[in-house]
């Protein structure tokens, strides 16, 4: 059972991540009164891309070629490091700072890959991505810091596994959760930070860096961003609302925990989809204001906890 739990923990994120994107797209289509693509569309896209040939820019260096493996690999590591359905097993990398900096490594290579081919789109895509991620990193840490102060540990599993939650701290946790949700939107390139569906190069952030990729490498990049979405969603639901995580590795408990976990994820996805349907993308230079607001929320939350 132990090995099975480990296998589940490692494979959960990459296997279910595309489904999450599919769910969000489906909900968005429904809200727009469209039938929309099927839930499994992202899987079909990835499968197709994996089987296509590649065209690579003549100007690309090895950075361009290794970046997808690193970016995808990082999401695998982080995906296995964050608490998903159980709070019992954990990797030595399940630490707040480690996770933040591991994700930053992925962003680093993604941005470099964007610049590598000398395309102007890739360049400003990287510039915007780095601008956002530079500002978000602090907020990321600050929003989880509330939990660190509450639970006296930076280990994500211990935060998720702690049953103790004082009602007095509920407001603080909620405020921090809201700002973490904003971090989620920023890091996964969702509205109001970025439009994942855009075809307009001038407004792109994430997509602009991938314009030069094709075939397998594009598949890995797309898959990696899907992974990132599920990772952040999992952190949101498991750290700020640590309910229903399996505290042992019995088959029944794990099955129940996975069900609860998926239900919790669904809530987040619905929230994202609804949000994307009702709000517009913000102008780029308005984004720091939003992040700053979230940061103030964090500070209030930190002020509230003892």
């Amino acid at each position, binding site marked *: 059972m132990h090995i099975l739990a480990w296998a589940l923990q490692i494979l959960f994120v990459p296997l279910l991540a595309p489904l999450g994107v599919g769910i969000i797209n489906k909900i968005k289509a429904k809200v727009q009164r469209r039938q929309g693509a099927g839930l499994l*569309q992202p899987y079909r896209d990835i499968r197709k891309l994996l089987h296509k040939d590649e*065209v690579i820019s003549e100007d690309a260096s090895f950075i361009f070629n290794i970046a997808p493996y690193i970016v995808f690999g990082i999401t695998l590591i982080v995906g296995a490091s964050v608490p998903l359905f159980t709070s019992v097993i954990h990797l030595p990398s399940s630490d707040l700072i480690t996770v933040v900096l591991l994700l930053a490594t992925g962003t680093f290579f993604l941005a470099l890959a964007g610049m590598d081919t000398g395309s102007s789109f890739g360049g400003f895509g990287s510039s915007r991505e780095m601008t956002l991620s530079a500002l978000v990193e602090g907020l990321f840490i600050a929003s989880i810091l509330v939990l660190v102060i509450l639970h006296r540990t930076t280990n994500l599993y211990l935060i998720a596994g702690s049953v103790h939650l004082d009602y007095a701290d509920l407001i603080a946790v909620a405020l921090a959760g809201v700002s973490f949700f904003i971090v989620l939107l920023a890091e996964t390139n969702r509205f109001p930070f970025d439009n994942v569906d855009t075809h307009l190069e001038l407004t792109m952030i994430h997509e602009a860096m991938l314009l030069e990729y094709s075939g397998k490498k594009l598949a890995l990049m797309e898959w990696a961003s899907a992974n990132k979405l599920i990772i952040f969603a999992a952190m949101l639901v498991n750290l700020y609302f640590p309910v229903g995580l399996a505290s042992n590795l019995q088959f029944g408990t794990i099955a129940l925990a996975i069900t609860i976990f998926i239900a919790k994820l669904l809530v987040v996805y619905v929230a994202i989809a609804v949000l994307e349907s009702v709000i517009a993308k913000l102008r780029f230079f308005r984004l720091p204001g939003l992040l700053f607001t979230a940061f103030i929320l964090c500070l209030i939350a930190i002020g509230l906890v003892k």
Partner: protein
Amino acid sequence: MTGMERKIEERVKKLFRGSLAIRQIDAGSDNAVEQELNALTNNFYDISRFGIHFVASPRHADMLMVSGPVTRNMRKALEHAYRATPEPKIVVAVGDDAIDGGIFKGSYGVYDGVSSVIPVDYTIPGDPPSPLVILRSLLEILDKVDDSRTKE
């Protein structure tokens, strides 16, 4: 068609069924075709339910939909886009202009159709073809997608 070619085509169709990325190229079109293509993504035609979507870069594309008679200015752009698209790829000439130059045929400024510049696999006639025609042709090209979702 040799057995080898058929096998490859079979593989491609299987691959693209349910996931087709289209890069639209305006090679000197009068924008009539673009209007109709644009309509494909609206709620009524909702092309995304067949797994078909438009993409921003030819690197991501499986299919190039070329409109317009290919003006002299757009020839290089078209060639670049063709070269930039990874194999396997499908080139579709949309509209009469793209097929043989249409009403611009014989003009000194155009190349009389996409096929004189890059190899074309399929054509969708019409000036411009209506969205429904385009959709039907696309689905035909993809050789019948899942039955449950084509019924309207």
